[in-house]
């Protein structure tokens, strides 16, 4: 792997990781959407780095990721004002700090996992594992439907990057499939978030917990 390739891998891997952390903390749907786009650019960047390294067919994947995750998914998830947070999952400086510390802790765990012998790109893999764990934290740390939706989509993007970083290029049909799933997930998330808003008059999933026991 050439020096430029290595630098771009690190750059785009870091972009994915940073976006995964900041997307937990943001207060509005619009900010989350912008961060998701950045994360998708990170995934496309990793693909582009591989394409530059000789896997020219991956340019198709780069175009696909940019089209689906930078353009179409944010458009599907573009909700009206009802989707803006009514309250904030990590309220105040303490909540924010705790969330950052937890993210850091999981990143350290990810980096340690990446250092297990033998895998190529241990640092990038570790960083992506960190981002992956942080996305799982996001799924349990926030309560707004829009934030949870972005958490799932963020997890999807990090997983896509992680798969490529771990195994190298995957067949085109699978890449298309994975992006199609991201698209379908976004459609379902938007549909169900809207239904929750209409039926329960809330964007907080804690208000929609009638099924118990």
């Amino acid at each position, binding site marked *: 792997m050439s020096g430029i390739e290595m630098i771009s891998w690190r750059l785009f891997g870091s972009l994915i990781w940073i976006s995964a952390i900041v997307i937990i903390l943001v207060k509005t749907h619009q900010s989350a959407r912008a961060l998701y786009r950045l994360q998708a650019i990170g995934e496309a960047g990793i693909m582009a780095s591989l394409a530059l390294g000789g896997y020219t067919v991956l340019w198709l994947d780069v175009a696909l990721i940019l089209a689906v995750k930078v353009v179409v998914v944010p458009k599907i998830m573009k909700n009206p004002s009802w989707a803006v947070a009514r309250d904030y999952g990590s309220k105040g400086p303490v909540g924010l700090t705790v969330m950052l510390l937890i993210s850091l802790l999981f990143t350290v765990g990810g980096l340690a996992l990446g250092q297990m012998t033998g895998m190529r790109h241990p640092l990038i893999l570790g960083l992506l594992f960190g981002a992956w764990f942080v996305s799982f934290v996001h799924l349990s740390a926030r309560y707004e439907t829009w934030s949870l939706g972005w958490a799932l989509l963020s997890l999807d993007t990090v997983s896509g990057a992680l798969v490529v970083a771990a195994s190298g290029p995957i*067949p085109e049909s699978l890449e298309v499939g994975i992006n199609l799933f991201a698209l379908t997930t976004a459609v379902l998330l938007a549909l169900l978030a809207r239904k929750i808003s209409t*039926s329960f008059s809330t964007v907080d999933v804690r208000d929609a917990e009638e099924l118990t026991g």
Partner: protein
Amino acid sequence: MIVPVIILVVLAGIQFVVPRALMVWVPRFVIAIFGLSLLGIWVGWWHPPGPTATWFFDVVALISMLALWFSEPYLIEEARQHDWSIKRVRYYQGILLLFLGSLVAVALWTNFLFLWMAIETATLTSVYLVSVPNSRGAIEASWRYLLVTEAGGLAALVGTVISLTGMGLPFDAWHVGVITGTLPVVHPQWVLVGALMALVGYATKAGLAPFHNWLPDAHSEAPATISALLSGLKLAGAILIVFRLFGVLSQGIPAYDLKDGLIGLGLLSLVVAASFVAFQRDLKRMWAYSSIEHIGLISLGMGFGGIALVGALLHVFTHASSKTLLFQNAGSVRLLYRTSRSDQSAKGLLMRTPWTGSLLALGTAAIIGLPPFAPFWSEWLILVGGFLQPENRVWDIIAMGLLVVIFTGVVLRMPGWLWTPGKKTALPRINESWALLSPNLVLAVFVIGGGIGVPWLMHPLWHHLVIHLMKSRV
């Protein structure tokens, strides 16, 4: 093996555009196709790839036929009672066919990433189907179902890729059962880490505890046909993928590392079912907890291996037929009584709706493992198989104890639906629809005699399957 899936996807597409008068004919056509494909396997026109795939395809085809048969009158009545628009019915039917197509893909496809895509399609389509009633409960259930199982699905994807990459296998070899002999493993730690991730991911899809929290909600709120297919086929499909993946990975790392995970999750699922089943007052919710129990039993059987593994594969069929009967029957109860809760008006079933009540009693006797019904034989094989292995005997005895608790819980709860408590009052009889009863009566035949009858009828396949399973390292 892509042709049957393509046929179903095309028919699903047709369902979205076909004129209203012809809408009922597409599912009928699908029933005929499933029937023909079963006949084709019977007479040797075509063969799915391997005995496990053939067995699971047979189960998928048979249960899908009966579920589609029940779905037609059920949908008409459900749409009438809850004012479903024709557009909603059309979408429901079209996506149901896509869901069935994905289950067929789970049975027939062999590449692990394509299998992942198949189970993902099953998840996403069923999330929509669970939300179709559009009630507050259905919306909440489908939201939780989507979030939890999609997160699990992504864990399964990453786990599958990392474990197979760790095995040093090229993508072309990421297939079920193509490796013979022991491989020179490149990175055993990665194989184990990936295997555990895949186990967690697919366990989430299968509803194994502690990743089960979406299941009782989704099963209880979905339309009856969807609850039946989710419980009988989709859960089993997910656990079957992880079992097949472990079959490949066990050629690189010690099988007991993988089997312990299946046994642990299986036992935990029995604990969860034992803790909750006795407190349920909604019929569908009770069967949902029972599904956690039975998928736990299948996981236990796969973890024990040997005869128990044969029992686990038989249980895929016996559980699917019994649970389809019970969920469809619970759907009939909801339509007839406008509820399936015993603390509301769904009681005195044996007196007011004797056929529906009798089928409920029959299905209950079967699902709690009473002889001579079908699930008894498969549970017997799983438990005896576990007991025969000294290293698993303790876990097997714990499982037996938990099954007794579940048995007691269901037996104590069931009279609440079957009879009316207190003084006998002259509650009026309710007219039962033969259209709803007929598919359940056919299912009852399988529930009564299927445990021995189906392996006997399909003797050559069953013979191959048992030989194949007894060689398995997992």
